[in-house]
């Protein structure tokens, strides 16, 4: 099982300094996530869920231990290399969508492709294909403030998948949405996992959302425990 892991964490710890005090957020975690998994990370506030997601996504660095994604050690990369690696391998979906307000949906989705060598026409084509996949083709030229919360999050998902990343990391993707919109987002994530084979790691407080995942991991005080398959 370990050899087929897409994500492989060994002895990963994360400490923060808060004044003179050191806060131990994660304690020597070992974790293997297979390719094609849809994993929900649950736990109370401050348990380290988002920290773990950030470490896997390469936007934070562990205090100790190793992180290997698709056979590549990311914990020892330089900041520059890590940025390039993220652009190719990770799609982020944020709770507050984090769309850029002055850009249209299409331009928001196109952003990660600016980090590739694709010509402008091809970038637009792919951005529109991703918007089509989340069912928002007709909203391509709308700005975020002209969209509903659910639509904004769909744009966020289109942006996350447009560069066909290895991993989709979702931090409370339904946390700011009503139940109906939240369900639509979960339907979409589930479809991306089942039909496109995307590996998804989703941080959530909501057991209803976690129930859509294939596996659920609980984090409590920096330690992991695994649920039965959902």
């Amino acid at each position, binding site marked *: 099982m370990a050899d087929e892991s897409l994500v492989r964490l060994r002895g990963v710890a994360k400490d923060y300094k808060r004044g003179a005090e050191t806060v131990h957020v994660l304690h020597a975690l070992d974790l293997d996530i297979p390719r094609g998994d849809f994993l929900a990370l649950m736990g109370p506030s401050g348990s380290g869920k988002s920290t773990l997601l950030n470490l896997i996504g390469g936007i934070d660095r562990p205090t100790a231990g190793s992180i290997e994604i698709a056979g590549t050690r990311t914990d020892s990369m330089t900041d*520059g290399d890590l940025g*390039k690696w*993220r*652009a190719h391998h990770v799609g982020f979906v*944020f709770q507050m969508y*984090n769309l850029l307000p002055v850009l249209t949906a299409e331009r928001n989705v196109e952003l990660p492709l600016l*980090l*590739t*060598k694709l010509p402008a026409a091809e970038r637009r084509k792919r951005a529109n294909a991703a918007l089509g996949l989340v069912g928002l083709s007709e909203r391509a030229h709308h700005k975020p403030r002209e969209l509903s919360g659910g639509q904004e999050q769909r744009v966020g998902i289109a*942006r996350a998948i447009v560069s066909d990343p290895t991993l989709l990391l979702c931090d409370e993707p339904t946390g700011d949405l009503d139940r109906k919109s939240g369900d639509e987002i979960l339907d979409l994530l589930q479809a991306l996992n089942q039909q496109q084979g995307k590996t998804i790691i989703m941080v959530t407080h909501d057991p209803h959302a976690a129930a859509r995942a294939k596996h659920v991991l609980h984090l409590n005080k920096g330690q992991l425990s695994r649920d039965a398959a959902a």
Partner: protein
Amino acid sequence: MSNSWDQITAITSMNVRNMSQRAASSIVALIGIAGVVTVLIGVLSIAEGFKAVLDISGSDQVAIVLRNGATDEMGSGLQQEQTRLIADAKQAARDEQGPIVSPELYVVVDVPLKSTGTAANVPLRGVGPQAVKLRSNFKIVEGVNFTPGKFEVVVGKGASMQFSGLTVGSQLRLGTTNWTVTGIFEDRGSVAESEIWTDATVLQGAYNRGTSYQSMRVKLTSPSAMQAFKDELSTNPRLNVRVFSEKQYYAEQSKILVTLVSTIGSAIAILMGLGAIFAALNTMYSAVSSRTREIATLRALGFGPAPVITSVLAEALLIGLVGGVVGMIVSYVAFNGVRASTMNFATFSQLTFAFTVTPQLLVQGLVYALILGFIGGLLPSLRAAKLPITTGLREL
């Protein structure tokens, strides 16, 4: 591996389009920079105007002869006999009336300034009959020239604009004598326009100068004759004089004031610039702060520090550019051509000049504005690029 130019232009244009959300603080910084540029150009245009007057005043075909050891006309003195010897020099240009020379007398008189009513020093120059031939741009623009032998004066246009009672027909009490203003003259804005002219022999009598003069102007056969003229006078045992080309003489005179005004102007601009930098820093820090989550999102997606730094700097430079252009326009409209007078330290008398906003000054002002914008944007841009992504993403 990445299309850096597309990244930079996309992020920068996005940032610039966002500026309307920060209009108030951007305008404060812009006004600050525009003010600094206006003052910088304004002050330096005084130096330019002063320099321009002295530049156009000097011809390299006209020599000024002073007593040896004198650096200006005030400290000089020549006897009539000496002026005849000087006029006999082979290099002096001649016409049907003989050598083109003007032995001159120079006294400083008090005349009230129009602007403040306080008395200021004005040069009263006694000139020889050929004086006009030594100033090729001299022309009477109002009234008539003074009559030799009479207590009459003509007034330079600059002096008549700056001082009270210097209009055609008015009477002027100078020393113990009443003088009549018979005309106003122009000389293409040269130093002469700040002076009052009369007949040298009349002035000698009025001021008890006997037959002495203070300087002698000599038109030479050509500019290249200057050195030979100097050599001839210096080897004449009956003369103990010093020769300047008129151009060199005025260049020396302008040095003190131009250096003083430029130094003071630059110091004021630097001090004001510090204030403007703080305004720009404040604007850019708040711009970065309002975009913290946006910048962190871009960094999370894989954008490097370069596009982030460039986008913040571009915004600051844009504020600098617009501020600079506003400053250029305001300073040109407000100052260019405005006439004023100031003390010429070389002669201790007033010199009238026009503020001169040259293209070089405008460029200098714009470059300064861009430097202010760049400094104002640099630290905030570095901060934006260094902010940890996870911290930025938590910002609302």
